[in-house]
């Protein structure tokens, strides 16, 4: 099993005709993802390496039956692209683009939530999602993932996700699904959305959660772990030594008003019963230990 996406998920790429969209869209297809369409109003009727291009998401969905989309549109166009996908009835929208204004994020997140409560937005500014061996949407390097479970991964950071997945695969520990939720101020899919689904997924036996400074998503996740989760969680939080008031690369990674420190997040996760590691290269070993005790 898996969460959110699997081998049957059909995906439309908004921005497939651009260089990033084409590069990653074709890589995703090579991995086995059902990349069924691209969109570009000016290039409708054309194709990208055999993938048909439609004028709109609505049309692409009608012709292909896709339920997911992946957005590689430049930041100024992301708000329009997300709303177009949601209005067309797409249920899972992955936004890879970074640099989206936070007012846009706040606006389209709430508009989609109001009008389409069952639609999920993953990102913006995220690496995407992979169910190893079945479906890879976004920019996660598929070759480092190992199919078959039993570990689910959810992370705010791209490279740290890769690091963690790599550590697991090297030890022969597979993954059910790995979700990069992104480091922006208003992420759609949250840590909790993923933890909830991993808890309900039969094949997932344990979960890795990677957080970073800023906001309170990790504290909220800790509360969820304490009250709702029976499966073990290994957690890592980046940014213990980040100075307050400085944006550490991700727009969301900032300690402000003394809130959102890594220390506070790690303490909350530890108190919730998670195994907290102090550096990302310990994640694999810690998970191996956790799995032995199941």
């Amino acid at each position: 099993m898996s969460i959110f996406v699997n081998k049957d998920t059909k995906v439309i790429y908004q921005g497939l005709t651009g260089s990033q969209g084409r590069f990653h869209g074709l890589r995703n297809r090579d991995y086995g993802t059902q990349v069924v369409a691209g969109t570009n109003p000016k290039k409708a009727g054309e194709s990208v390496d055999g993938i048909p291009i439609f004028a709109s998401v609505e049309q692409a969905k009608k012709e292909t039956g896709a339920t997911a989309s992946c957005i590689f549109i430049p930041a100024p166009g992301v708000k329009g692209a997300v709303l177009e996908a949601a209005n067309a009835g797409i249920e899972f929208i992955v936004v890879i683009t970074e640099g989206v204004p936070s007012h846009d994020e706040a606006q389209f997140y709430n508009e989609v939530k109001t009008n389409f409560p069952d639609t999920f937005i993953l990102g913006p500014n995220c690496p995407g999602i992979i169910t190893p061996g079945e479906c890879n949407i976004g920019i996660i390097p598929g070759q480092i993932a190992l199919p078959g479970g039993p570990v689910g991964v959810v992370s705010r950071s791209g490279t740290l996700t890769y690091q963690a997945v790599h550590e697991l695969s090297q030890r022969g520990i597979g993954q059910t699904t790995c979700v990069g939720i992104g480091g922006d101020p208003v992420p759609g899919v949250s840590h909790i959305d993923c933890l909830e689904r991993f808890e309900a997924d039969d094949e997932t036996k344990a979960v890795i959660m990677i957080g970073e400074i800023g906001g309170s998503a990790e504290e909220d996740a800790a509360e969820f772990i304490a009250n709702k989760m029976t499966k073990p969680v290994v957690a890592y939080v980046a940014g213990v030594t980040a100075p307050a008031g400085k944006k550490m690369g991700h727009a969301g990674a900032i300690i402000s008003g003394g809130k959102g420190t890594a220390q506070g997040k790690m303490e909350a996760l530890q108190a919730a019963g998670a195994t907290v590691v102090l550096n990302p290269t310990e994640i694999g070993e810690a998970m191996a230990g956790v799995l032995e005790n199941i």
Partner: protein
Amino acid sequence: MDLLEYQGKQLFAKYAIPVSDGKAVTDVQSAVDAANEIGYPVVIKAQVLVGGRGKAGGVKLATNEDEAREHATSILGLDIKGHVVEILWVEHASDIAEEYYASFTLDRAAKKHLGMLSAQGGVEIEVVAEENPDAISKIWIDPYIGLTKEQCVAWVDGAQLNPKARDGAVDILLKLYDVYVQGDCDLAEINPLILTPEGNVHALDAKVTLDENAQFRHEDWAEYESTQILDARELMAKEKGLNYIGLDGEIGIIGNGAGLVMSTLDIVNQVEGRPANFLDVGGGADADLLANAIEVVNSDENVKAIFLNIFGGITKCDDVANGVVQATSKVELKSPIVVRLDGTNVDQGRAILEANPNPKVVVASTMLDAAREAVRLSK
């Protein structure tokens, strides 16, 4: 991007939020001329991007030309917490009956905009929040709907301001919300928002932080660039398009991905080193970008060792290794560089570094080993 007070006030004025008449100047004579033109008494205020200006002697009242000259002279060039005053804001002094606090910002947990209003203004809102949280009236605004007048009135009533301030406050807050949303602000704050003895409400200070991601739709922001305070290293990095933050240690840090770089800082601290910077080269870093990154870090006089930490995903370790070889042939390294490569094409990457030996380039196999080695070499 943080705005200076006068820039924030000029932005407020565009939205018809009442602010005092004033002028920004950069020399003493212009300050005196501005004071004469505005009419006494005037307040002369240092324009710096740090709090605590008043206590540091950066805000002074002048009742005549001599005082204006004296204060302008003493404040220009003043060092306030490491920020040297280069710009003064001269404005007509206001009589204050009461001081309030008002702001809009994004509440990331709620994923909605948060408005805060308090009858206890003039002090840091964090202090009020800690000592007397009930004194802050909060409102959560759905960005899809916006702030309605009814909501705003109820919010102002909840803050229990002087009844005389009610209408003026509602008017200003509705306008401030427009500044916040249309202006793509991360923060729009007025502290203090004042009530004058005559019953007028107006903004006595302005604190505005802009979301740089929205620069593409604000051509007028270009004028703020010149007053941004960056240190020399940050300036050089910005020119080269690098995501760099200066810190004050001696280990230069370069990595790919914000999370990985943050955790690199952590691990260096864990083995008792102090990072000199945060530098994220991002995904798909090529040889040129790496050379630029190494050049920026290498130019920092405090740096005694460099730690290059790459996890290859889309980025391939052999490309990175070629970048290191190219960079070290172009830039003369002042300090040793410890390279940790892992992930895609790691074996090819390490082979390239072995085939091009350089006494200043050290290859380590794990993050922890690399951090230890960098700290050892920095001593």
